[in-house]
């Protein structure tokens, strides 16, 4: 395993938090989906992400070497200490938002895990190999829905377009360069996220076109979740997610 640098830890934490927060949002659907099959599919995806979060946050705890385990990291940090991209924490709003978001993130994850299979961090490479398979299914499932909704009824097209318009600006953040990425790339831990921009856009635009959706123009909008500055949504999500561990300090479950 490579030596742990702050950038290495930060990089893994970012992946772990992305899985954690996206998984939490997906799990909110459970029992409330539009059809029973989607209840199953959404729970299935949520499970994948919670599973990834467990592996990644455990690994981050090891890299940090301060005795924090997956649950300490998942439940006992303050808002500004989470490193997930803002996109993950955006509310479900409606099924279109969830599918568009899942597709945008899933397409990113697919490229990410595929590159991370060759990480110099062997534990991370092993997580990537498992997560890559899951990501293929996520992209397929959410991509199918993006097409169905975009190329479905007038209402579904309108909703899908509204979701895309709302969420698209948050994808700027995914590819924002920063020293963490440069250091991780230099050490062979994983790609600088900015390196994935071109492939991601190619893959995503193809599906959006098929879905007859209009890709919003890029704007100067910038979010900063992966740097620890989030939207107002994360605090509310954490209030719910952390309530029990915060209310029973020291308990194990």
């Amino acid at each position, binding site marked *: 395993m490579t030596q742990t640098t702050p950038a290495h830890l930060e990089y893994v934490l970012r992946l772990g938090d992305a899985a954690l927060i996206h998984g939490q949002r997906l*799990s*909110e659907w459970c029992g409330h989906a*539009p059809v029973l*099959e989607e209840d199953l599919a959404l*729970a299935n995806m949520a499970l994948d992400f919670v599973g990834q979060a467990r592996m990644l946050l455990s690994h981050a705890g090891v890299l940090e070497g301060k005795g924090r385990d997956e*649950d300490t990291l998942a439940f006992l940090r303050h808002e500004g200490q989470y490193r997930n991209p803002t996109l993950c924490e955006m509310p479900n709003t409606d099924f279109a938002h969830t599918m568009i978001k899942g597709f945008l993130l899933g397409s990113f994850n697919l490229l990410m895990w595929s590159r991370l299979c060759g990480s110099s961090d062997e534990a991370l490479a092993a997580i990537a190999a498992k997560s890559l398979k899951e990501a293929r299914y996520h992209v397929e499932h959410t991509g199918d829905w993006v097409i169905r*909704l975009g190329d479905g009824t007038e209402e579904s097209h309108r909703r899908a377009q509204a979701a895309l318009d709302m969420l698209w600006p948050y994808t700027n953040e995914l590819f924002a360069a920063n020293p963490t990425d440069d250091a991780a790339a230099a050490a062979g831990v994983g790609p600088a996220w900015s390196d994935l921009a071109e492939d991601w856009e190619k893959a995503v635009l193809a599906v959006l076109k098929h879905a007859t959706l209009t890709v919003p123009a890029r704007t100067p909008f910038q979010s900063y979740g992966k740097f620890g500055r989030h939207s107002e949504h994360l605090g509310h999500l954490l209030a719910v997610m952390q309530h029990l561990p915060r209310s029973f300090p020291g*308990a194990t479950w």
Partner: protein
Amino acid sequence: AAYQAEFDARIDAGATIEAKDWMPEAYRKTLVRQISQHAHSEIVGMLPEGNWISRAPSLKRKAILLAKVQDEGGHGLYLYAAAETLGVSRDDLTEALLSGKAKYSSIFNYPTLNWADVGVIGWLVDGAAIMNQIPLCKCSYGPYARAMVRVCKEESFHQRQGYDALLAMMGGTDEQRELVQDAVNRWWWPSLMMFGPHDADSPNSGQSMRWGIKRISNDDLRQKFVDATVKQAEVLGVTLPDPELKWNEARGHYDFAAIDWDEFWNVVNGHGQCNVDRLAARVKAWEDGAWVREAAVAHADKQAAREKAAA
């Protein structure tokens, strides 16, 4: 009449009836009612536990709970499929649930008020469900019996997981133990009610027994459940909320206090604590999802038209 005689003979011989076989209309209706009620129960049953997914206290427990609630949805799915073999559509069954015409298990009209409820539902509610359901694995209608084999297998897994979660809490802090005891206090009596009215007050039981749909009486199953659970409660270290509960050497069973049947019928008749909320949640999910289902159909139609045009 010849059909009826053949049907009776097969039932008496313990053979299974399949979808393509002739069956009396009353038998079909009873099965549709029972299987669809069972399917609805799985679907509505996702809600009380689902209430805690976003607040599960560890990632491991969150994953286990998600998987469990997903399994319940899966049970719903293949029970609806079993009902469909009897000539009803899932849409019709859903419509009956949402309009309040169809029933589902009353147990899900109780609220989940603390995290231990999730474990107790696994232990007591799934435990009671398994007692009820194991005999159904040998039920006379083949598709139902086969679905129940799979359901029961997964339910026992859930029961063990629920019990395991409670063991962890009982081995924790005083506050955690209080949560477990509080949950047991609230779920014990409703669990006993899951076996239904006393045999004497259970009008349809006789015919169902005759048809090989039901194989053991309500009171016998309830007694079996009590006998099995008392020991588990001792291991766990919780007190079951019944001062009259004690071993009866003569009967070879545990005696227990009288069930509050007024409460049972109140909940069955719609006046439980969550009847309104549960149905409202299902109706909301269905109505909010209408545009999604319509989109899927519209897209499939467009695709089909395009393929036809291209052909």
